[in-house]
Each structure stands twice: as structure tokens, then as C-alpha cells.
């Protein structure tokens, strides 16, 4: 039984004179090569050219800040629980008096790491997050020379404080979610 019908039985019979010349075979090969030279290419010249991305492409994660620049993540661990690849780890810490402008909740993630090699970019962490803190973005994970560099900490994940450098994720939120966030009695959810 074969999976494809391209199987060929290899035989050991003596080659004829023409076959032993090899020239017809080489010529046949060259024809195939030349045909491919003029065919439409399937690859593109990355990074000069990039392909079109979906607006909701699931790439590298971002940890969002709120409007006042405070980190949204409260180290609740639900993303790590939801993650099928067990790629996320975190260590929580208690917010000290005077740090109210840095962290939104009384608990925050002191360490937050995603192993980008384990991650399968499924987006379940984003769905699980009750604080709208983690989102997948259109950005893709850079190539690196070592495996250790793929463990992204907060330095790479948290978005910059500056308003103009923030990462826009509004395309990922459905109108229903955005409307839900405006309800006064559901404020605790966001």
C-alpha cells in the first residue's frame, strides 16, 4: 500500500548505451530547471518586502498599560493556567505605598516571562485575561542566536509608557467588548 501513487520500483538492470551517456538525462533536468526560472516565485524578499498581515494576526505578545500608564497585569495567573503550552510563568509582588502610579492593582507581576519557543500563538492567554492586560500583536518574534533569548521578560513585553509609542490593540476587540467596557457596573472587570 502506498500513500501517493508516485512510487517507482528501483531495478538493477544494465543501462543501455544511451542511458550510459547521461546526456539526455542532464538535458531533461536542465529543461525542468529553466522552466522553474521563469515561473512565478512563491517566496518574497523578506525583510525588504513583507506579506500582508491580518489585522488580528496572532504574533508577539504585549503587556498593556492603562490610560494613566499603569501596568494592567495583576499577576492573577489565569493566562498561565489557560496556556496549553505552559509557556507563561510569573512571580507576583505587593504594590507598596507610592507605587500607585506604576501598577493598577495592589498586586502586580514582578517577573513575567513568556517562552516564545514554547508558545504556539493560540491566543488563549488573551482570552483568559480578566484585566485586558495581555494581547497578541501583529509584530513577529525576532530571530535570535540562542534559545535563552527567546524567554521574553517584562522588559520586552510591557509596552512603553509614552502615549505615542503605545501598541494599538483596538482592532482585536470586538464592538461588544468595547461597549461592555463602558458599562458603569462592570468597571471592575477591566
Amino acid at each position, binding site marked *: 500500500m502506498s500513500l501517493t501513487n508516485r512510487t517507482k520500483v528501483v531495478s538493477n538492470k544494465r543501462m543501455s548505451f544511451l542511458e550510459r551517456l547521461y546526456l539526455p538525462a542532464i538535458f531533461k533536468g536542465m529543461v525542468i530547471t529553466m522552466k522553474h526560472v521563469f515561473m512565478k516565485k512563491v517566496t518574497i524578499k523578506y525583510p525588504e518586502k513583507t506579506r500582508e498581515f491580518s489585522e488580528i494576526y496572532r504574533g508577539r505578545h504585549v503587556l498593556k498599560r492603562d490610560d494613566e500608564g499603569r501596568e494592567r497585569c495583576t499577576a492573577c495567573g489565569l493566562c498561565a493556567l489557560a496556556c496549553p503550552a505552559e509557556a507563561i510563568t510569573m512571580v507576583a509582588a505587593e504594590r507598596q505605598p507610592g507605587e500607585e502610579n506604576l501598577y493598577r492593582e495592589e498586586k502586580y507581576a514582578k517577573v513575567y516571562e513568556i517562552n516564545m519557543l514554547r508558545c504556539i500563538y493560540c491566543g488563549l492567554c488573551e482570552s483568559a485575561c480578566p*484585566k485586558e492586560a495581555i494581547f497578541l500583536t501583529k509584530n513577529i518574534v525576532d530571530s535570535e542566536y540562542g534559545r535563552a533569548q527567546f524567554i521574553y521578560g517584562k522588559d520586552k513585553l510591557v509596552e512603553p509608557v509614552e502615549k505615542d509609542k503605545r501598541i494599538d490593540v483596538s482592532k482585536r476587540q470586538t464592538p461588544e467588548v468595547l461597549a461592555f467596557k463602558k458599562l458603569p*457596573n462592570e468597571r471592575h472587570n477591566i
Partner: protein
Amino acid sequence: MLKITIDGHSTEVEEGTTILQAARKIGGEIVPPAMCYYSKLKGSGGKCRTCLVKVSKGSEKDPRPMPKLVASCSTPVQDGMEVQNITSPEVLETRKAIVEFLLINHPLDCPVCDQAGECDLQDLSFEHGVDTSRFEEGKREFDQIDIGENIKLHMNRCILCYRCVYTVNQITDGRIHGVLYRGDASEISTFIQNAITNDFSGNVIDVCPVGALTDRSFRFKSRVWFTRPMDAHRDCPKCSGKVTLWMSANDIYRVTARKDEFNEVEEFICNECRFEKKNAEDWIIEGPRTITRTSIISVNHYQKLKQGSIINPVAKKIEKPSE
């Protein structure tokens, strides 16, 4: 012996037994949820109303139904009584309203709360609550208080079940913990912030159905579902020494009393066991505690099944390898 029928299941109980206790004797899904009643605490119950049931037949002598829903934790069984719990739409509808009442002042800060994952209020609202809130007014807010070195009180989360008050009154000697003020303004307090120094005061953490009283030594250390519950014991001069250790690898994150299927403490433990013995060498570890499959704590925890509970179609072939 008195005969009682709950949702079609009958049992016989002794005089003085409450409907809730009779239901627990039958077991299964007909057991009404209880947020304030605690079988180990005398006088508890009757505060939260989550255990309301419908008595469709009062007794053999007086078969009239009771006019209103009754709190099953504090209503004694009468001979021939017939009770409806999950078979009565009225009870389920009322329970939904009760959950809404309990959540009125609750901050819903589960992502921050250390109790999340083993919280009775989470279970209750997941099972019986609605997923939206109609409450728009401001919730009552209190500052967090440290009750002694080991216990944290988040009054915002308290549902005023009085369990902790009964615990301190009954397990410990000397009244140092109680409820101040009334109605919407009630709050749990240690009188004039007296630290609870009694040897068994840590048990208020375990009896609290919500995250109002939590362990300061575990505060924000981990989440309950990332740690693994292990049964362990030690030779303790003060208490039975039988505890559950919440471990990750070889580190002990938290020590609690063992809890039964109704989330009640089996045996109260002393503060030394709870707060001071955080080394694996202090304990004789018996093995992993059985967790129900539906609990979030069981996620990603693998456990060897008992022989006999494994259904393996090729087991026979493995035992007798073919020649």
C-alpha cells in the same frame, strides 16, 4: 427516627437534625449550598440564606406546606417532611437573588485575591449566580487590616457569615474578635485592633468562605492552582498535626487544615503548624490529596490512579505478552 424526603430521596435521621444535615447524609447534588453554616461551629447558620429550600409537606401530622422558603441549616426535620431543593424552580430563582445580594458589596477582585480557586463564593456564583450585575452604586470600602502577624483582613470581601466570630469564641478562649455596628455598616473587628494571639486563631482563615481572612505568609506568593495539595502530618503537642501542605516542587507555600467534601475543616490545627513549619523536613508527607476533577486545582496536576480505576483496553496484552 424521623423520615424525610429531599428531592425524592428519602432517609431517616435522628430528632433535632436539620434539613441541611439530612441532605448531606444523602449527599450528591441535592445538598443545598451553605455559606454561613459550619457543622463544627455551634450556633452558626441562619445568616446568609443561600441554603433556602421549599418544604412542600410539613410533616405526617400536619401535611400543609410551609408558607415561605426556609433556611435548611436551621430548620429541624419533622417526621414525614418533604423538601424540594433543586427540583423547585422557586428555590433556584431565590438562590440567584441571594447570590446577587451577597455580591452587592463584594469587590469582585478575584484576580488579586489569594482565595480565588478555592472560594465558596466563587463556586456559588458560578453555579447559581448570573453573569451580569445590576448594582451601579458605590460599594462599601474599608482599609485592609493586619490582624496580628499572620492574618490579613480584607473587610471589602467579607459576607458577614459570622463563622470567624464563632471560631474565635469557641475554639479559642477569650473573646477578642467580633462584629461591630449593624446592617450595611457591620464590620468584623478584633476589639480595638487586639492582635489575636491564641494558638488556634489561624483557623479563622480556613473557616472564612471568602478571601476576607487570608494567610499573610502566603500573601501573593502563588495561586492555589499552581501549588499541589499534599496530605502530611507531624507530631504536634498542641493539635492533631494533620494538615494539607500546598507545595510546589519541594517548597511549602502554605499549610492549611484538611477540608472535607463540604469544604469544612476536618480538624482544626494550631498556629505553629500553620505558620511556622514551612520546611519539608518538618513533615511526614503521606501523598497527594485527592482533588475533584472539576476543581481548578486539578488542572495540570497528574496523579497515579488507583489500580482498578484504570480502564485500559490493552492491559491484558501487556500482562501476557504474546510469544
